[in-house]
């Protein structure tokens, strides 16, 4: 034979043998023979091109044939899935909820720890752990070129009253921004979309005021004006020129609190009252946050050591004392390339907790899917045997099973993605209880979604394949002869399915316990119960400085305002305050260190961390919190002539809360005692009840209240003031107050008007919503476990139809049969509960060891014995119900039918 022909023939045979089994069964031989006959004839007629055409034909038809088979598989799979809608619905639903939940939980971390948009190489960014520094310190830090590529200092968020016209009387809107050192944008690695950013050369004191705006601000408020660069904005009453527009999505170094305006720190104090008093040259004004960009190949630890040394040197030179941590460090670094700054410890905690939850849910979903698929595959042994005996190939059958599980996993996965997006949207649209803007975009993280989907898919394929493989290797004859059932087999104590049930029970109980502990503790500690009437307590914010008032005018205004407002009809009490009660995110609260000198002149008890709040006259009366002892501040305390901080001034009156009094003086009467805070002396004049400090903090914090004096207004003009107005029920006090303010001070912008109740409700809603996610997670686990258990029991009943039939034929009563089925279910439930309870406790311990917050919330709910015993009981009850239903069905088996089936 012509060698070309023989090569062609062998290629042809090889390709023909690659055709799918079923095709080969029918046409394999014919196809081979046709090739043998046709090849010499084709060669004679067309030569080499003919042979190539022949090979091309068989090669092209090969994948097409496979595709046809796969299409058939899919159609068949859809038909079989549609035929058992219960199974399909349960499997798809559990996958969907599992995938959706997992993505939501893990994406929650990602939305906090992810990189901020628009920032280059965020992994190289670092910042000090929750400490702010003074500008002169920063100027030393930025010289550390051996460890730092660059550094920037910024102040923010700071509010700006922005007007878009030259008209001085135009209504201004409040926007937030950063006051930044010139290196801000270069350090973050951001390039302008238009115009320029700041540079050391251009930003010098005394320059004309300039501002960089965010892309978002440009689009929303300047109508994406192409000529925006060069336009002027009125910021806090002064004109500033827009010199640049930030890139898309860039919202500052800390997009968790997005900034829209960026003003160089070199601008005049009139533009930004925060900068009055020349903080750029005051080593004790520690108000700047710093972001470092580490030099290439420098580790954070190295940089931390270098910066620590610099800080200690500076402290020595300036005579400033900073607390050291356990390692003797004055400063510590943490990554800054994240949406919200989070210390490595916090991030480890969040990650571990969420990953544990994620793993548990995923394990549950997989176990459920596995037991469903296993049970189903055994029910289909008969179908498999028939298909095998009429000539289906084993690989084809395996492929069929695979197609079904892949379709199932995909359907579940798609539904899960939809769910994840839906939940993400719902969570993102939650109002966050914070006055400053707080952006919390909570989209499902694509990576998380992909991993979860992949695992679900793998589980589906794995568990779909195992039974398929095992069932196609059985003796066809045996199965067919035995009917749809395998030979009578006893109860297998350690069968795969039983292990699944036990595992599922245990995992869901663990999940339930942990989520419940978290939620119960969370709700317990963070639900705010202020302990006084809040519905008619109105809060009104004013920021006269940004409305163009001078420091003196501001002081005069705020001094007189209380009197003016108390005359308004319906107002029962008015007080000024620096901080809003319960708003832990408010800026006015200073964290400080104070001591109670003992009688012999030595410093006695020291309180390392305490709040100092400035409040006006009649604050506690307006709030409705009675004083336990002493008096509260009156008008006289507010009108101290000496600015606070003057050395040698007479002692300032102070009111302590119970915690502060206890920690400083033990059980002794605090009234009349003195307190030192740095150079300042205070005399305790009053003692007030502990009020929860705010959102998400369980412990009341030692707090010292000092009078909000007239000089304090001028000392710190950046601070806005909040007026507490207690109104009369049934009267619109607020409107009257607003009218009064508008008529007396038409140029004053009143903002953030609400009642304290609204504030608290918003916080509580947020807490409850977050808890709800975990509760749903726990309930879902419960549901999954019950479904799994019910499925397995039902399956066991189906498999034992014959046995049950024989028993009943021999005279077993239906109660006995029911008992038989239930006993086995009960044993599984018991083992699972014990394991789950143990696992839950271990998990709880290890999570407690990780974090105080969790430990506290756990210990609160651990006392909740109702739950400790209630959860397993509820779960066991549900599980028993899941056992009972199929058990009852078992008693409905007609022995004659069951036996005739064989």
């Amino acid at each position, binding site marked *: 034979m012509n060698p070309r022909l023989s090569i062609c023939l062998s290629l*042809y045979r090889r390709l*023909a043998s690659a055709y799918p089994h079923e*095709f080969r069964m*029918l*046409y394999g*031989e*014919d*196809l081979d*023979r*046709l*090739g043998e*006959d*046709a090849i010499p004839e084709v060669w004679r*007629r067309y030569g080499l091109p003919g042979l190539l*055409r*022949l090979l091309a*034909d*068989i090669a*092209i*038809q*090969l994948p*097409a*044939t496979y595709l046809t088979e796969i299409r058939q598989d899919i159609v068949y799979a859809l038909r079989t899935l549609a035929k058992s809608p219960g199974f399909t619905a349960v499997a798809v639903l559990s996958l969907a909820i599992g995938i959706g939940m997992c993505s939501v939980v893990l994406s929650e971390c990602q939305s906090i720890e992810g990189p901020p948009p628009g920032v280059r190489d965020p992994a190289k960014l670092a910042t000090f752990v929750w400490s702010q520094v003074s500008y002169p310190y920063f100027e030393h830090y930025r010289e550390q070129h051996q460890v730092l590529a660059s550094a920037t200092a910024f102040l923010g968020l700071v509010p700006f009253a922005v007007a878009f016209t030259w008209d001085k009387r135009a209504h201004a809107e409040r926007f937030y921004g950063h006051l930044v050192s010139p290196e801000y944008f270069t350090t973050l690695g951001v390039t302008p979309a238009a115009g320029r950013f700041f540079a050391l050369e251009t930003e010098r004191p005394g320059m004309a005021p300039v501002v960089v705006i965010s892309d978002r601000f440009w689009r929303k408020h300047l109508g994406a004006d192409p000529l925006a660069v060069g336009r002027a904005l009125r910021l806090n009453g002064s004109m500033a020129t827009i010199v640049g527009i930030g890139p898309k999505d860039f919202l500052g170094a800390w997009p968790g609190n997005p900034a829209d305006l960026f003003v160089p720190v070199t601008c005049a104090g009139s533009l930004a009252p925060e900068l009055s008093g020349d903080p750029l040259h005051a080593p004790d004004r520690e108000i700047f946050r710093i972001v470092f960009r580490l030099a290439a190949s420098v580790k954070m630890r190295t940089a931390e050591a270098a910066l620590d040394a610099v800080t200690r040197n500076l402290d020595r030179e300036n005579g400033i004392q900073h607390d050291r941590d356990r390692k003797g460090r004055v400063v510590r670094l943490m990554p800054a390339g994240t949406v919200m700054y989070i210390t490595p410890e916090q991030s480890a905690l969040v990650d571990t907790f969420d990953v544990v939850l994620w793993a548990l849910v995923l394990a549950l979903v997989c176990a459920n899917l596995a037991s469903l698929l296993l049970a189903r595959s055994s029910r289909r042994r008969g179908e498999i045997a028939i298909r095998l005996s009429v000539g289906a190939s084993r690989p084809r059958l395996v492929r069929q099973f695979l197609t079904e599980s892949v379709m199932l996993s995909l359907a579940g996965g798609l539904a899960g993605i939809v769910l994840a997006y839906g939940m993400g949207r719902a969570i993102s649209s939650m109002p966050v209880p914070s006055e400053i803007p707080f952006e919390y975009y909570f989209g499902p993280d694509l990576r998380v979604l992909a991993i979860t989907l992949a695992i679900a898919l793998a589980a589906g394929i794995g568990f779909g394949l195992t039974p398929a493989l095992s069932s196609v290797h059985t003796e066809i004859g045996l199965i067919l002869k035995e009917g749809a059932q395998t030979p009578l087999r006893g109860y297998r104590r350690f069968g795969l399915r039983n292990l699944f049930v036990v595992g599922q029970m245990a995992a869901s109980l663990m999940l339930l316990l942990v989520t419940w502990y978290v939620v119960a503790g969370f709700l317990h500690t963070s639900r705010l119960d202020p302990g006084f009437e809040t519905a008619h307590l109105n809060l009104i914010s004013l920021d006269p400085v940004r409305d163009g008032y001078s420091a003196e005018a501001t002081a005069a205004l705020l001094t007189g305002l209380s009197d003016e407002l108390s005359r308004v009809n319906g107002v029962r009490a008015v007080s000024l305050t620096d901080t809003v009660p319960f708003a832990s995110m408010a800026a006015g609260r200073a964290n400080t260190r104070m001591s109670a000198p003992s009688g012999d002149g030595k410093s006695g008890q020291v309180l390392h961390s305490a709040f100092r709040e400035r409040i006006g006259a009649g604050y506690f009366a307006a709030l409705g919190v009675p004083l336990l002892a002493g008096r509260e501040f009156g008008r006289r305390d507010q009108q101290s002539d000496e600015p606070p901080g003057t050395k040698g001034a007479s002692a300032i009156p102070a009111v302590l809360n119970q915690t502060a009094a206890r920690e400083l003086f033990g059980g002794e009467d605090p009234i009349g005692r003195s307190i030192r805070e740095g150079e300042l002396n205070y005399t305790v004049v009053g003692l007030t009840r502990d009020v929860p400090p705010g959102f998400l903090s369980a412990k009341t914090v030692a707090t010292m209240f000092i009078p909000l004096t007239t000089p304090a207004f001028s000392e710190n003009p950046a601070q806005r003031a909040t007026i507490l107005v207690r109104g009369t029920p049934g009267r619109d006090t607020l409107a009257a107050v607003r009218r009064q303010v508008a008529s007396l001070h038409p140029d004053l912008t009143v903002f953030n008007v609400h009642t304290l109740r609204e504030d608290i409700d918003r916080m509580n809603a947020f807490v409850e919503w977050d808890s709800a996610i975990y509760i749903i997670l726990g309930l879902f686990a419960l549901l999954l476990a019950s479904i799994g258990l019910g499925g397995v029991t039902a399956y066991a009943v189906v498999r034992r139809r014959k046995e049950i039939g024989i028993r009943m034929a021999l005279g077993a009563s239906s109660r006995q049969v029911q008992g038989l089925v239930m006993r086995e279910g009960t044993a599984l439930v018991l083992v699972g509960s014990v394991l789950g309870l143990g696992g839950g406790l271990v998990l709880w311990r290890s999570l407690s060891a990780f974090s105080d917050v969790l430990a506290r919330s756990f210990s609160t709910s651990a006392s909740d014995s109702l739950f400790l015993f209630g959860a397993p009981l509820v779960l066991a009850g549900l599980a028993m119900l899941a056992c009972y239903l199929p058990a009852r069905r078992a008693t409905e088996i007609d022995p004659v039918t069951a036996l005739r089936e064989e």
Partner: protein
Amino acid sequence: MSRDPQDFLPLHNNWFHILLSLVGADQHGYGIMQEVLERTNGTVRLWPATLYGSLKRLIADGLIEESDERPVAELDDARRRYYRLTRLGRTVLDLECERLQAMVRMMQRKRKQEAY
């Protein structure tokens, strides 16, 4: 449930030739291939994989079926499968022929109009 013969129109070229070669006599795959080749003077060749792919579809759609009747002993190749037209297949073929004839008539009418 048999499908409406109209569903198959217009008939795929390969299918038309296969059905046509089965008119009158049962054939095996190689026979079909040869007959089509001869009938079309070598212009239409059904390559093996295409041919069997089409046969499979035709059987699945019920246009042809495997034939149990074998030709006379000396012509019979026992190892080969033989195929024959089903009633549906014959109907489809007839309908296709009518359709083609109608088209030819249409063409002729048009030509005549042009000639005037």
